[in-house]
């Protein structure tokens, strides 16, 4: 009886182990990666530059204390002294922008729903300059297909497809709910977009680079979907 039980246990254990091993096996990984690529293509095909997220009324705003902050450093990183934004890559006029210079450009404010990859949603209004304005100011050279955002948050970065980055609801935001960004929400400047998941919106910005190649991203290189659209 005892030996029968242990044998049965052994068989069950071996079956469970081989199933678990199967989840990590080469064919399963290949299948999942192929489907991930296929889905990224479908996401890009479904994305319409003209489709905008609905603007929400002020009453829909999430209490700010309930809107999660996100950074990968141990503490919210402080703004470095003499901060400026560098715009580079395949552009006619690479340059630096101070916050005052960015705020002197055409401003956009929008109140939209935020969608996190974890499944939560929240609402705030965001004030800033459209990435498309920056692109126009810098003058894109032919061959630009991606936009890379870099930060002073322990090197966090994310690269985007050009159509999503130049969508009218993708901003370099300095303000949230009408006041300058707090340290926890990415001060002094962050990406905010209605058409991407939260992890694509790089905070604590230092650089915007218009590039030919896809340079991945902090979470994207660890396995999260690169397109990350909503």
């Amino acid at each position: 009886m005892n030996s029968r039980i242990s044998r049965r246990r052994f068989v069950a254990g071996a079956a469970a182990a081989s199933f678990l091993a199967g989840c990590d096996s080469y064919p399963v990984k290949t299948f999942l990666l192929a489907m991930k690529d296929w889905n990224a293509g479908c996401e890009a095909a479904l994305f319409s530059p003209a489709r905008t997220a609905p603007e929400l009324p002020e009453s829909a705003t999430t209490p700010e204390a309930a809107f999660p902050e996100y950074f990968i450093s141990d503490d919210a990183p402080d703004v470095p002294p003499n901060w400026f934004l560098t715009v580079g890559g395949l552009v006619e006029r690479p340059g630096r922008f101070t916050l005052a210079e960015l705020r002197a450009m055409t401003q956009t404010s929008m109140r939209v729903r935020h969608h996190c990859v974890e499944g939560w949603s929240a609402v705030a209004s965001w004030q800033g300059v459209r990435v498309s304005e920056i692109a126009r100011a810098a003058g894109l050279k032919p061959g630009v297909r991606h936009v890379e955002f870099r930060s002073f948050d322990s090197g966090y970065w994310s690269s985007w497809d050009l159509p999503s980055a130049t969508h009218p609801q993708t901003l370099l935001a300095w303000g949230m709910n009408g006041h300058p960004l707090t340290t926890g929400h990415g001060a002094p400047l962050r990406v905010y977009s209605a058409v991407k998941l939260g992890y694509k919106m790089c905070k604590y910005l230092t650089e915007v680079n218009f590039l030919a190649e896809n340079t991945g991203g902090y979470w994207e290189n660890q396995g999260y979907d690169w397109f990350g659209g909503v």
Partner: protein
Amino acid sequence: MSDARDQQAKFRRQQPLPIRFVHWCNALFIVLMAGSGLQILTAYPYLGPRGALYRWYPLQGVAPPSWLTVGGWLAGGRHWHFAIAWFFVLNGLVYLAYLFASGEWRRRTFIPARDAAPAVAQFLYYARLRKSPPPAGFYNGLQRLAYSSIIIIGVAMTLSGLAIYKPVQLHFLTMLFGGYDGARVVHLAGLALIALFVATHLVLVALHPREILAMITGGKRE
């Protein structure tokens, strides 16, 4: 229905091959979809937007047990979920196409005028409020109700899933479910109903093991 098709249907097995094929594919897909879905839920096991969680939901903050999850972490769960989703939908479409093309729908789907009264009688029989079961065809009224409801739940799961996946690009769909957080409620409620269906289904086939055999071999020709 033509005489030839009538004749054909007469000699069809209890569970024709296409039905057996999609059934077992579906069993696998539902396990993978539910497991990877629970892995995704684990990342934020709450219902309702930030700052306004739904008070009526009793399981706020209760993550599903990890042995029920597939994918290992959030990104893995998402890869499984969005990979298998295609096959789940394709399989469902093959089933529906076969159901209607073959005429099988006549003996399987719930037609209220035909099946409502027998379904109630069958329920009363199971509840021991009625001594004998009502006369039944290939399936009884309750079976037809269950097998038709689960199709509608499958469609609702597909649409609410798309509404969560693309709340901006498919905004009209998201609005149909009362917004992003409403669509999450529908998607989780659908999972609960599927779990209830599967649990009942497993109990009933355990009580009628010959039906398992029919779903493997096809069973006798009717």
